[in-house]
């Protein structure tokens, strides 16, 4: 018991860092309605600046601290100026994608600047044990942890006082409540937002510096920390600094206990990873409890996602793509064959995002979790049931669809950003409790799937790459064709109606629940097929491809390509890591970082300037060219009999009544 308390105390002190990051998230969110998923990357940047400045650059500590904090504030401030402000009237997906873009960009800058290895921890506060003079024997805490708590408490109290008692704080709260009303009283909401974003960046920097004195963060580890910070902010309902302080310390303590007792927890529950899952389970419940079954009155109209274009001749379109790709698979130089396979699999994943997010408007950050489940099931059925290719792929898709159906259930109660956060939480729970569990999935060693064979043809991805590529192409084309045909079905019209206005859809008799679950299920099936194919590509399946972090990137890249169109999914396929574009950049050593930097900036630019995505460019160019010749349907739709002949949506139902 004494030891448990000692460990809880140390954990609570580390939890102070969550409070700092959560304060940054909350301040930025309250002023702009954007949950900054890039804040962790900003903390990493500041952390590294501080560590290198005090280390190899030989700066004095105070200057290093100030510069690191300013860096955090400047990055967030400029992001507010250049991106957050112009996105004020953009849909939530665009905002989330933009912060993923920030995350990608800053992470890439960190790696390009400082290299991919984490620097050694700094020694700002020392690690000497300090007696707390309580308990028998007295509890001790490292001096650095005592400093964390002091810093966090001081900052929390000053933030609370600032937002409560100063003119700036009151104005911020007023603008958060009603921006137009605050502006009509003479407050510049832009200046308020900018200041708040800079403060948020500064807080992230402080968290990064503190974290740098124990374990310097990496791009993935900081994202896990960020998720815990989101949990803490959610517990405080993005409102109360004091609840956030208590929640942060409590979560830190609980995590430390769960780590300490992990063996006992595992034998009791047969599940591992409790310490990492705990905050995520908090997230999921906190959001679900606040949810609402029937869509409420929106304070303002949710801005629209771009149009979801109809492929007029799906058979022709997919046939042409299939022919070109097939030819390419046989003539491509050897070093481009595997990247082409990756491109096709990434296309399938992005296609799943198009269905669930682009069509139905449900933001899922768990798509690669479904893919991973598909991969796992495919590997298991191939090994245990000796099912021949391609059946394990189909079984993988079906099981992933069923899991997606269950994971989609929260979408019945929560919407927009909250749904994104819940699905991200679920993705990370799956990460730490399922994919990382050696006893289930083989953990880091992965599972081995027997190479694919069909009709005596060897489709082994390792030594018959081109043949395997053709098999993947078949799936990619079928799925793309399927989605193109599906787009013309009334179901997609219902999805678009739900995406556009859920209350309005419910009022005419559309079941929001059924429509959303169908979207999740179909998207889960597509993702699962992609995952199963990825398993066959890797042979030795490593679960890192399906980490929650990758799902975040997938959403960013799907937006970059074009989240509402099949051609957008194709563009995303080319761009996603390991695909053809990365391969082409491979002439230099740090291709992945360069591509990720370009992609990060690209996501931000696309969100700002061309929300239809890269994939829409050829289509728009063609439309522009043909527009010069003829008139547009839009302006010539008046017909003498009053019924437009040019509508693209199928005519009303055929269930004619003989009355």
């Amino acid at each position, binding site marked *: 018991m004494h030891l448990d308390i000692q460990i809880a105390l140390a954990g609570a002190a580390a939890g102070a860092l969550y409070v700092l990051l959560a304060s940054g998230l909350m301040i930025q969110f309250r002023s702009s309605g954007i949950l900054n998923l890039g804040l962790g990357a900003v903390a990493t940047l500041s952390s590294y600046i501080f560590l290198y400045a005090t280390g190899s650059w030989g700066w004095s500590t105070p200057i290093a601290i100030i510069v690191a904090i300013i860096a955090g504030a400047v990055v967030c401030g400029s992001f507010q100026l250049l991106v957050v402000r112009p996105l004020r009237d953009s849909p939530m997906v665009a905002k989330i994608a933009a912060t993923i873009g920030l995350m990608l960009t800053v992470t890439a800058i960190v790696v390009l600047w400082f290299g991919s290895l984490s620097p050694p921890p700094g020694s700002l506060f020392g690690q000497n044990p300090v007696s707390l003079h309580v308990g028998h024997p007295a509890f001790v805490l490292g001096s650095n942890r005592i400093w964390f708590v002091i810093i966090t408490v001081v900052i929390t109290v000053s933030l609370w006082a600032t937002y409560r008692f100063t003119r700036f704080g009151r104005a911020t709260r007023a603008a958060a409540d009603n921006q137009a009303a605050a502006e009509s009283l003479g407050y510049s909401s832009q200046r308020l937002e900018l200041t708040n974003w800079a403060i948020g960046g500064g807080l992230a920097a402080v968290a990064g510096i503190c974290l740098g004195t124990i374990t310097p963060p990496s791009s993935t580890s900081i994202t896990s920390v960020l998720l815990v910070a989101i949990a803490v902010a959610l517990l405080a309902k993005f409102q109360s600094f004091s609840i956030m302080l208590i929640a942060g310390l409590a979560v830190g303590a609980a995590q430390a206990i769960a780590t300490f007792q992990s063996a006992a927890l595992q034998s009791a529950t047969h599940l591992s990873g409790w310490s990492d899952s705990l905050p995520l389970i908090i997230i999921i419940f906190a959001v679900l409890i606040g949810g609402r079954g029937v869509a409420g009155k929106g304070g303002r109209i949710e801005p629209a996602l771009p149009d979801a274009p109809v492929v007029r001749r799906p058979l022709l379109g997919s046939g042409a793509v299939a022919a070109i790709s097939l030819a390419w698979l046989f003539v491509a130089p050897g070093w481009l064959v595997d990247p082409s396979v990756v491109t096709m699999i990434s296309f399938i994943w992005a296609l799943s995002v198009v269905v669930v997010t682009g069509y139905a408007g449900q933001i899922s950050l768990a798509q690669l979790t479904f893919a991973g489940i598909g991969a796992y099931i495919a590997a298991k059925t191939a090994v245990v049931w000796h099912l021949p290719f391609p059946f394990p792929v189909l079984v993988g898709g079906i099981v992933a669809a069923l899991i997606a159906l269950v994971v989609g259930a929260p979408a019945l109660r929560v919407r927009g950003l909250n749904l994104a956060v819940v699905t991200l939480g679920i993705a990370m729970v799956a990460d730490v409790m399922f994919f990382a569990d050696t006893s289930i999935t083989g953990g880091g060693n992965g599972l081995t799937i027997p190479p694919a064979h069909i009709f005596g043809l060897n489709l082994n991805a390792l030594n018959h790459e081109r043949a395997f590529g053709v098999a993947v192409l078949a799936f990619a084309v079928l799925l793309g064709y399927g989605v193109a045909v599906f787009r013309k079905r*009334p179901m997609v019209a*219902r999805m*678009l109606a739900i995406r556009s206005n859920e*209350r309005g859809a419910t*009022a005419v008799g559309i079941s929001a629940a059924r429509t959303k679950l169908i979207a999740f299920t179909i998207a889960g099936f597509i993702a699962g097929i992609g995952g199963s194919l990825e398993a066959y590509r890797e042979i030795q399946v490593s679960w890192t491809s399906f980490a929650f972090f990758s799902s975040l990137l997938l959403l960013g890249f799907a937006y970059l390509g074009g989240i509402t169109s099949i051609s957008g999914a194709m563009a995303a396929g080319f761009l996603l890591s390991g695909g053809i574009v990365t391969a082409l950049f491979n002439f230099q050593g740090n291709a992945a970082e360069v591509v990720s930097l370009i992609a990060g900036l690209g996501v931000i630019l696309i969100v700002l300037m061309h929300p239809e995505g890269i994939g829409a460019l050829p289509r728009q160019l063609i439309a522009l060219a043909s527009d010069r010749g003829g008139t547009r349907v*839009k302006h010539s*739709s008046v017909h003498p009999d009053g019924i437009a002949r040019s509508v693209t*949506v199928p005519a009303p139902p055929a269930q004619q009544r003989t009355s």
Partner: protein
Amino acid sequence: MTLTPVPSAKESTVTPEVLLRVAGLSMNFGGVQALKSVDLVIAKGSLHGIIGPNGAGKSTLIDAITGFERPSEGTIVFMDSDVSHMAPHIRARQGLTRTFQNLELYLELTVNENLVVAAHASKRCNSDWFEHVVTTFHLGGELSTKARDLSHGRRRIVSLARALVTRPVLLILDEPAAGLDTHETKSLGLSLRQVVRDGITVVLVDHDMSLVMGESHMVTVLEEGSVFAEGTPSQIVANEDVRRIYLGGEH
């Protein structure tokens, strides 16, 4: 006080069939009682007006009847079946449809898509009915226009048409004349007569006195969450209490 409607000569011979019966409907929002034991009977084939000052509970009543809010107490019986616990979309499929004060259109879909989505959701709509609705509201020329690009008045019309293409049994209109000019309001009134002639029962909730009084067969006055008075338009206009609390400024 509540007025009992005096049956007219025509009505007294045939008892009107009850389409919707709301009994003892109460609604609390965190201590505020928005509805206090409201009873309401809507006769089939009628156009029933509901008026009341701001905050009287008109929108809350619509939300409760159509299932967008869950009442704290009370029952809602529609076509002889208790719909009190049904999801809003199920009520809509049974023919209990509504429009919204703030329209809730699918702004980035075309007018045609707005209507077709609704038509597909209903078993009662066929293509004749669809065209009938399009013609009634003169929407033919705007079918391929995005709802976002329409004027406010036309958006109101589209939201009304969207509810109508489902061929509802009972259509509840939440302030359909808000923001319309005199001419548009007048033409809305004519369209509503057509809707009633088509056999659809209409509940009209609006601020526009001339519209409600001119078109309704029966009017219910809500005040602070309860039914204050009920009767034919002429009875309501003649009612001193109603004139004092509500009509005062206008009459």
